[in-house]
């Protein structure tokens, strides 16, 4: 290639760069455009896009553009884009960062437009995760919580109490030594939470920042799981989610504690069922897992807030929620769709709907994010390595407290 050709090439490249830079101001459309970010895939994404097209039909003056963002890049992207005005008008995401976002102005309080009638259509426990310092910040689309999956071929009926669970698991294991009893990640606080709350423990004492993990009730929950692992031997060691899925699909696992996403992993499996979590025999309390909410939130820097709110309300009407429930198999936060006869027949939906009553909202305050890693250490030390549970919890509480300073 001759030198002059090379020069010409680079001159073109450089001008192309300039042109690219100038081209950022697109001509305005007569219709206002709303931008919605989400991280849905597959059937859920298709259901969302269909809902947006239906919305556009009711509002000819608006266009909605949906952009799919990978899940792990989502919070960072929001954090950098929204304050600079480059973010969406609405986005759909889990609720756990509502506290952070409210403090930094990334989300808009919608109390200005919302009223009690609007809120009444949802389960109350799905609305409170979206309230921060007395303000409502979004509308819930769906909830996620944990329930008990079991293999009907290994276990005839779902257990009502933990003693029943242990007995059934041991029986299954006795019948076939290759079979394990209960599979879930024992060192994850999210999966341990049902037992923690079932035994009467809690992470934080009410709404303030005092860590309440180092209580005898919490320690009892850790001791319980250690018993299951070491004495009753019904939990496999180093149970990762991939392993649990593989074992359950091979019918070598009687019980799994997991959420609605687990159904997607059971594509080829025709022998599974789901039931609400049992009651803890020692205390008589139901095992209460964390409840997470997937919500539609409005950006604080949006330039079309009124229209964005209209879209939010449309997406959460009972009619739309029924679509999502029946077609997308999404656990919607609206109450009415579950009374639909088709929904009532579905055991999967019934089980999770039952679990909503017995769940604890995952706190949306920034202090919650500091808890996971120290608790992972505490659970691992106490359950797997046999450290005294109360000591392990005290260490974790100290680490969390220190991080707050």
């Amino acid at each position, binding site marked *: 290639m001759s030198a002059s050709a090379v020069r010409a090439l680079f001159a073109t490249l450089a001008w192309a760069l300039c042109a690219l830079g100038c081209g950022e101001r697109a001509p305005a459309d007569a219709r206002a455009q709303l931008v919605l970010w989400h991280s849905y895939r597959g059937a859920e994404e298709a259901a969302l896009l269909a809902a947006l097209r239906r919305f556009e039909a009711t509002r000819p003056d608006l266009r909605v553009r949906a952009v799919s963002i990978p899940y792990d890049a989502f919070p960072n992207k929001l954090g950098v884009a929204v304050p600079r005005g480059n973010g969406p008008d609405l986005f759909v995401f889990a609720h756990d960062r509502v506290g952070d976002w409210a403090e930094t102005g990334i989300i808009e309080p919608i109390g200005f437009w919302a009223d009690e009638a609007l809120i009444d259509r949802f389960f109350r426990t799905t609305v409170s995760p979206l309230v921060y310092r007395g303000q409502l910040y979004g509308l819930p689309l769906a909830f996620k919580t944990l329930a008990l999956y079991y293999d009907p071929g290994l276990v005839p009926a779902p257990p009502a109490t933990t003693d029943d669970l242990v007995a059934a698991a041991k029986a299954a294991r006795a019948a076939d030594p290759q079979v394990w009893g209960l599979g879930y990640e024992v060192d994850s606080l999210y999966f341990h939470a049902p037992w923690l709350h079932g035994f009467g423990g809690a992470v934080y004492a009410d709404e303030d920042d005092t860590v309440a993990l180092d209580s005898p009730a919490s320690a009892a929950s850790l001791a319980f799981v250690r018993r299951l692992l070491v004495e009753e031997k019904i939990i496999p060691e180093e149970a990762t989610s991939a392993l649990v899925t593989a074992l359950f699909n091979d019918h070598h696992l009687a019980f799994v504690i997991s959420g609605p996403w687990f159904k997607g992993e059971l594509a080829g499996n025709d022998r599974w069922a789901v039931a609400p979590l049992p009651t803890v025999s020692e205390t008589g309390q139901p095992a209460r897992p964390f409840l997470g909410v997937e919500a539609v939130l409005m950006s*604080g820097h949006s330039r079309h807030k009124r229209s964005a709110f209209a879209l939010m309300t449309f997406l959460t009407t009972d009619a739309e929620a029924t679509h999502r429930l029946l077609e997308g198999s999404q656990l919607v936060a609206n109450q009415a769709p579950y009374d639909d006869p088709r929904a009532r027949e579905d055991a999967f939906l019934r089980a999770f709907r039952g679990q909503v009553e017995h769940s604890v909202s995952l706190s949306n305050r920034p202090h919650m994010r500091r808890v996971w*890693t120290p608790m992972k250490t505490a659970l691992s030390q106490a359950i797997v390595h046999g450290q005294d549970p109360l000591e392990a919890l005290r260490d974790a509480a100290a680490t969390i407290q220190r991080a707050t300073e």
Partner: protein
Amino acid sequence: MQTGALDAGAPRVGLLGPLLTTLLAAGLALVVFGRFAAERADAVTAWAAQAAAEALARDAAPRARVAALAEAGDGPALLPRVVVDDPAPRKYAFLRVLRYAAHPERAGQGLAPDRDADKAAADAFGRGARRPDLRWVGGDVARAAVPAGPDAVAVVDARRAELLASPALHFVAVLAGALLGLLAWLALLRRGPSRWAAPAGAALTGAGVLAALWWGASALAAATDAAAKGLALRTTGVPAPPPVAAGEWALLFAAPLLPLVVFAVIGAMSASRRSPHRVAYAYVTPAMLGMAVLILVPFGLGVALAFTRHEHGTFTFVGLQNFVRILKSEGFALTHPLSFYFTLGVTILWTGLNVALHAAIGLGLALILREPTLRLKGVYRVLLIVPWAVPNYITALIWKGMFNKQYGLINHLLGLVGVEPVGWFSQFWTAFAANVTTNTWLGFPFMMVVALGALQSIPRDLYEAADVDGATRWQQFRHITLPLLRPALLPAIILGSVWTFNMFNIIYLVSGGQPNGATDILIVEAYRWAFEQDRYGYAAAYSVLIFLVLLAYSGLTNRLSRSAEGAYG
């Protein structure tokens, strides 16, 4: 070393570099000014609305003026529309929104209205507690609201100012700057009649470039401010608040050009003694320009973060507190896995072991694969590069699965030779070994490729002469291959060790820091502080410490490179 003959720098030599640089600079200037103008328009609209609202709140007389303007549709695209609210539930609803923006800590009163808190918040808002996010309500309309007496709120909506009607203004500034830059380069590369012509020319044109930029930015700022002031005066009789300084914009754009100018000036000054330096600077500067803008500026911002404390979205300056806390290993014994020193030790061990293994395996394979008589060389090479080619997210998780205690392949293979199943992730050394194994598998292809290229630089006749002298293969390796490989292989080893030091993915995915954070390296700790604990300042301080450690390391390797350069004389 440089003979006089190399002075024959034909003009053709350096045109490509400076042309490219100038065009790039022009392009960058264009996009910067475009952005600048857009942000100015936003700011001006908001100020105009605020000024109008404040005036209305003080005095009812402008109300008529503004209303008349609104009726007539007067003014450049900046059309205030006034609403003066009477006491009504609507006021509280709107003020509720204001309340949370201005004072989040007062927002704990639920959804019911609270008159006192509302008024206090509205006062604060009116006093200039700016939260730009609330000013955009619908379309291009900015809204400002201030209390206008005990029972009323003055709300002014202003439509966004289209102040980009004069792109010619900044385009001229940019073109002038670009032409001046081109002149600067030509002055550098052309030998003038007097030894002072070139340096003087370079200095003058450098100053000219900066001046052009400053002028362009200031002119644009002045134009937009004048428009805002004029409009505010016309509507309310009160001048707008003072604008944001244009200086910071010019500085941001000038900063990356500064190294350019410094190079130019130095080059020009030494032009009288050794003219090849001009050529050298011409060659080097395009690469340095990108570095300056895209690495030095973000790094500066990152370092600034290290001196702050992040809490609920606000950053407060805390001086060296973050560094002190990390270095004192606060709350942990020095040997505790979460202390800085333990993590530093683990990181150094991790880096050293990995680099040694990568280099040894890569070099060994390259030596085998370059035998001219080996058949299927190409096939082997392509197969051995696969670990580098496949995305490491999935392969790292596959390796993690292979190390599973009960169902993993590694334990299965060990079981075949009678070894008890090892809990790989429950003790430090085994988890560390799992990490190192995975990273070695991922990293040796890169070293192999580099070594293959490096081995080509050794002339074959050296080996043939050694054969004639009767040297063995091993002696040839030690005395010919290794020393002559150094200049070509050392960069990859040095840079490879820096990358391994900061290798986040593998540690996070394979061992996840197990057991209990022991196998975390410094970069993973920094990440946890930033994204799991929201302590951005702390994480930034960690990053600065990582950088300082690596800087010290580079001081060492500098000597190695110097001696390696000497290998070829």
